[in-house]
């Protein structure tokens, strides 16, 4: 059983997920990275889907890296659902998006995002910003206890 702190990547872009996971792996970040490819799946993993039950096997999440624009349930909606639920209200959520529009940033914070990261093109190594963002929450931040389904 992986006892590293959990990081949930929510994104519909397969190429981004490949680069992000590879970067986290290469950076030897001690994290248990899970991936969901749309908003519905993310809610399922977090036990927030309609009629969903509280996860039985605890998987401690320290951060969700949530894409803003996804087909179906978008990032804003997922964030809203996370903040609505008593159990996940304090879960750190980092919005990750190609958009740097002031409106998107403002709305994310208004909905209770903890951070907003623009998907940039890193000159050091591909996916560097994912590692930078995740490292803070995994290594430095003292997380609230939030469990999700394994």
């Amino acid at each position: 059983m992986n006892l590293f702190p959990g990081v949930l990547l929510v994104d519909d872009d397969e190429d981004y997920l490949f680069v992000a996971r590879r970067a986290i792996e290469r950076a030897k970040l001690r994290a248990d990275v899970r991936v969901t490819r749309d908003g519905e799946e993310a809610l399922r993993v977090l036990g927030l889907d309609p009629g969903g039950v509280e996860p039985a096997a605890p998987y401690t999440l320290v951060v969700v890296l949530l894409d803003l624009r996804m087909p179906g349930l978008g990032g804003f909606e997922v964030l809203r659902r996370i903040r609505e639920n008593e159990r996940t209200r304090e879960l750190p959520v980092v919005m990750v998006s190609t958009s740097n529009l002031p409106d998107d940033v403002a709305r994310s914070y208004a909905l209770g995002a903890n951070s907003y990261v623009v998907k940039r093109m890193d000159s050091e190594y591909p996916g560097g910003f994912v590692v930078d963002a995740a490292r803070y929450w995994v290594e430095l931040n003292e997380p609230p206890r939030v469990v999700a389904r394994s």
Partner: protein
Amino acid sequence: MAAGLPPAIARWAASAQPLRRAVVLLLVGTSYFAAAKLGLLLAIVHTSATAVWPPTGIALASLLLLGNQAWPAIAVGAFLANITTHGSVAACAGIAIGNTLEALVGAWLVRRYARGREAFFSGLDAFRFMVLAGVLATSVSATFGVLSVTLWGDATWAKFGPIWWTWWLGDMGGAFVVAPLILVWSTGPRVPWSEWTRARAVEAVCAFAALLLAGQAIFGWLAPVGSDPVVLKFLCMPILIWIAYRFDPRTAATGVFVLAAIATLGTVRGALASGPGVLNESLMLIQVYLAVTAMSTLVLAAAVHERTQAERALRATSDELREALTEVEAFSHAVSHDLRTPMSTVYNYAAVLEEDYGGQLDPDTLGRLRRIRASVRSATDLLDELVKFVWAGNPTIPKRMLDMTALAREACAELVVATEDGSAVQFDVGELPPAHGNPQMLGRVLYNLLSNAVKFTRGREARRVAISGRVEGNENVYSVVDNGVGFDPRLGDEMFRPFYQANPVRFAGAGLGLAIAAKIVRRHGGRVGAESDGTSGARFWFTLPEGGVDEPVSRGPAGR
């Protein structure tokens, strides 16, 4: 008096089948005849001259609506009305010619100078109609008619003057009261029923009730005994102004007609006891009164209509523009997002390839691999700037009072982080006067001007960028001064145009930074400019109105 020509009949006539046309002409002739007989009932000064002559209005409106070829209906109607009342064939023919010519001349003048049948939907044209058809053209009929009854009838030259005045005023009344009524109900834009709310209907009923009451108080049974009607006559004016201002030309023309009917009937009834001479004088005075009232009311109604239409058109255009701009913005965001994702993929995979196989590649190939990343990055930067350029045109951003000094400091701090050499530049931020605007947008202006200054000090010794501001008259002037390479003074405002690049090779960029700044400043009601001697740096400045321009409609909380 005769009813106006309903629009359905006018259209029907215009479709011009001979039989139908004949029926319409017959109708016009009959109306003319009936109205003329009514008017001649009040002929006092001479059996053929009356101070109340509604046929002039019918003739004028008919020619304007049906075309000049309707003239025989008028000629025949006029001749028959006179010959069956009094006078020789020659005199009656002369009168009929005068009446017909009056209508033809009036219609021609109105078509030529007052937009024809549409005259009462524009203030200036309504006024021209009154003067041309009401005052000028009616003198034709008066002159022809009075000459005819004097030459071939029983009128004497001594009475030429009084008869002429009566004739002229009677025709004028018809042109002022009856013609507008027929014209506005037959043509022009219809007020849709949906605009007749319950409140408006109640208001219209109240206005007409007030008009009837005032009319009766002045001319009718309610008139106080022994009162001076001259003073009271003006009681009706505020009510008609009310109607003209709040409703459309149709309602106003109806109001004028209602008042004219009450006034004429009341005057006839009231003066009958005093003898025919007094009646004619009273009727002449009432015509003058009605002419003034009709002119004021109808010109006002037309002007109000014109303004309402202009406002409506303006609002529609501005709504359309706003919608189009919002669409362009949304579109540019969508395109930007959708393009950025595949561009990131290209960039990242090029980086992954370099990471995994870079060591096995010869320097040339490795260089080309890196070129992929550099190209994608500059394309993304251009995309960013384009989106910002569109965003800078957003007309609906919320504004508030801003601490420009703090905004400038933020921009400097951001610049130091964002650029590789920002920390090598010394920034001097002075006290800046506060301004009214959108924080993101004015922050972007400061950032772009500062970034421009930083770019052009590249390669210079002791790089300095100073930003200062002062109040000058009723505007704030903000200046960004650098000690960079400057620019050719002849360039002037050229640099603020989109995609202008001073030196693309030496100073890379999309060429939109200054254009975005200029666009935002103009949106805030200010101006931009730049000065340089071409060697020792440049000064870029912009102004903002001191109090700020009017607040546009906010698009909601998402706009911050």
